[in-house]
């Protein structure tokens, strides 16, 4: 306010004088000056009065706090402020200066920076997991050389006593922004129920809910890349229920629009994606804990297009319309001496996914546009182990395997087109072996080297070296199992 006064005065001065600037009489100017001077003194007295009042109130608040502290340690609200008896310990206590209570309710903000250097023996533009309809994105090791991966911004807070809200936006290396998750979650439902709504990573499988900076390898298992487009985000609602038992028993269901792969955005009011999941977990002794789960996912797709080549090598766009059903079993086991992972920890994890797709497959939608029935039954699994052999250092091994089966393509069985028109769907059993080592100087930084022998392509083996950094700044995040 005190700062504003001269500016306001100057503004007023200019406004008043502007039209008569050329011929303002000197006594007029003097009169105006006097007026402004009067305004100034008026404002400064008011500011002083206000400052005095603030000091008075601050004193009162401090006194009230002291009284409250002395009043007793156990208030039912669970917010007792300080020791009931004067603390005998000598210590320098710094009271953080708060300029305004407006910032006291700021949400927790954190940012994760990731990037990598990739050395790949094959051209990443030709990467394709043989035998499967490719997802629109999320396949392969990414580009060669230095890459800025996603920068993940998370803002979260309790909304009120009833809801918690969280937004995770991934700013991609190509300058686009993906809303990975933006959901609310209930806090006030009792009896073990939690409802989540908005966009969220589906709880099907184990790895699907895990954000990329918490992965134990740079990339997702092949089966996640091919069946779920990397990670399945639902736009919808989820309900979870935890049983009142000594073991962890969790049941849940999701309903969503099915807008993301393997579904598509559809012109329909009905639900495009349903999921059910069940988790069971517990401890064995004080060193081992485990979780197993099973999930079922039913998603509908309309004109889900993908690029392929015809028998002459010309690029064509094909499209699938139908239902994609996936069931998943997953298991995770963690071992650490006495449950303390500071120096040693072993984490074993595996998942098996089985998917059937049923519907229509259209060939060359922009040209010939032939369509007929299509169905497939495909599966994939991975198994990985990560061991912390000394504080800060971990090594990991992962094996990926996929089985495409032989899809039934109506256009081929009816003799309309040769199988050579569908090179992407030629039966294949891709596999990959990955080793990694990472070094975490603190909870908030991690440097990783990963080497993979990737036989996802039909013929060539891709040897991939990836060097990655992950840095977390801001609020200390809490992690799920």
């Amino acid at each position, binding site marked *: 306010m005190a700062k504003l006064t001269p500016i306001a005065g100057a503004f007023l001065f200019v406004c008043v004088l502007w039209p008569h600037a050329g011929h303002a009489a000197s006594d007029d100017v003097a009169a105006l000056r006097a007026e402004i001077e009067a305004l100034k003194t008026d404002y400064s007295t008011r500011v002083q009065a206000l400052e005095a009042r603030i000091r008075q109130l601050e004193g009162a608040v401090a006194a009230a706090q002291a009284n409250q502290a002395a009043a*007793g*340690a*156990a208030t*039912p*609200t*669970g917010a007792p*402020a*300080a*020791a*009931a008896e004067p603390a005998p*310990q000598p*210590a*320098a*206590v*710094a009271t*953080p200066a708060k300029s305004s209570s407006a910032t006291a309710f700021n949400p927790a903000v954190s940012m994760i920076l990731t990037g990598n250097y990739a050395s790949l023996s094959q051209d990443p533009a030709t990467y394709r997991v043989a035998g499967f309809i490719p997802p629109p994105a999320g396949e392969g090791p990414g580009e060669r050389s230095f890459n800025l991966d996603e920068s993940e911004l998370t803002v979260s807070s309790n909304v009120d*006593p009833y809801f918690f809200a969280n937004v995770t936006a991934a700013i991609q290396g190509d300058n686009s922004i993906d809303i990975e998750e933006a959901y609310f979650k209930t*806090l*006030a*439902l*009792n*009896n*073990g129920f*939690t409802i989540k709504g908005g966009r969220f990573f589906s709880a099907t499988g184990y790895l699907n809910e895990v954000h990329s900076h918490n992965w134990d390898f740079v990339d997702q298992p092949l089966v996640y890349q091919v069946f779920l487009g990397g990670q399945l985000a639902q736009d919808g609602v989820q309900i*979870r*229920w*935890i*049983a*009142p*038992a*000594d*073991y962890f028993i*969790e*049941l849940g*269901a999701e309903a969503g629009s099915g807008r993301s792969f393997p579904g598509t955005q559809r012109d329909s009011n009905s*639900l495009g994606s*349903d999921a059910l999941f069940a988790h*069971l*977990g*517990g*401890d064995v002794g*004080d060193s081992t*804990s*485990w979780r197993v789960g099973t999930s079922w996912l039913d998603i509908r797709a309309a004109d889900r297009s993908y690029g392929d080549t015809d028998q002459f090598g010309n690029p064509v766009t094909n499209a699938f319309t139908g239902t994609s059903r996936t069931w998943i079993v997953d298991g995770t086991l*963690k071992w650490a001496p*006495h*449950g*303390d992972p*500071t*120096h040693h920890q072993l984490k074993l994890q595996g998942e098996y996914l089985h998917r059937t797709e049923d519907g229509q497959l259209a060939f060359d939608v922009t040209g010939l546009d032939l369509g007929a029935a299509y169905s497939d039954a495909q599966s994939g699994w991975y198994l990985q182990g990560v061991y912390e052999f000394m*504080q*800060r250092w971990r090594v990991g091994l992962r094996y990926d395997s996929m089985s495409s089966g032989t899809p039934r393509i109506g256009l081929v069985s009816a003799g309309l087109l040769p199988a050579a028109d569908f090179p992407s769907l030629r039966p294949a059993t891709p596999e990959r072996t990955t080793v990694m080592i990472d070094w975490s100087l*603190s*909870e908030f930084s991690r440097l990783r080297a990963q080497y993979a022998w990737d036989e996802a392509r039909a013929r060539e083996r891709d040897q991939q070296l990836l060097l990655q950094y992950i840095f977390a*700044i801001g609020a*200390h995040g*809490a*992690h*799920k*199992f």
Partner: protein
Amino acid sequence: MSTHTRIAISFATLALCLGALPAHAALKVLATTPDWAALVSELAGDKANVYTATSAFQDVHRVDAKPSLVARARTADLVVATGADLEIGWMPVLLQDSGNTRIQPGSPGYFEAAPLVHLLEVPSVVDRSMGDIHPLGNPHVTLDPRNIAIIAKALAARLVLLDPANAAFYAARGEDFQKRWQQAALQWEAKAAPLKGLGVVVIHRDQVYLCNWLGLKELAAIEPKPGVPPSAGYLAELVTKLAATPPKMILRNAYNDPKAADWLSQRIKVPVVLLPYSVGGTPEAKDLFGLFDDTINRLLAGAK
């Protein structure tokens, strides 16, 4: 869709049936450390059914939100936590995933110990370059019996609030505990008098309250910064530094890795004293009284 709806309805019905089961007679308590579990047992006896989330051999800061802990949070009537961000890596997940309103912060069923006492080492500047520091102050408050007395008083009041039917029982037990505790504290202080002014080296800065209570002088910490393991260069520096002001002993907690402490001990010819740190850290530290008895006995033996 209709099959899905049916599945969902039967699932919801099952959930409601199980969820509506009558509550157990004893208070279900989830304590984050064995010390809080021991304190609840002192105050509530068999009126509480206590589950301890960690053991004396775990670094409470580095615990996973394990499925077993989510299950315990689901049924708990009371969570007893240290607070001051000690459990920040896992407690928020437990609270959020539990689907249990009784234990949400601000409810009577959520109890934090550290905010009740005078916290030491509250940093005036907070930056992650300083290591794993706690903006609210050093949360390792248990090893000062004066803190335990304050916390016990508040916890007894909380038990009364949660289970008014047994109010008289908790009040009587609380008073009895305070009486025995004050007596024991006087004895510990008298016994530990020779320790006053002795120089010690610690590993992590989690014996600050113990040193402050007994007047031990903390000459150095083996961790250069909280949560940061020492490098060879730093240890060598420490040897030179401690040559000028030799400590009487090196303190190691049950959950600490012995390597760095043993290495330093050999270099500067000063014994390592193993302390229980938490209830269960040594066979003698069976309860809170045993924890302090054993801590002082071991310190006195080390000081000889």
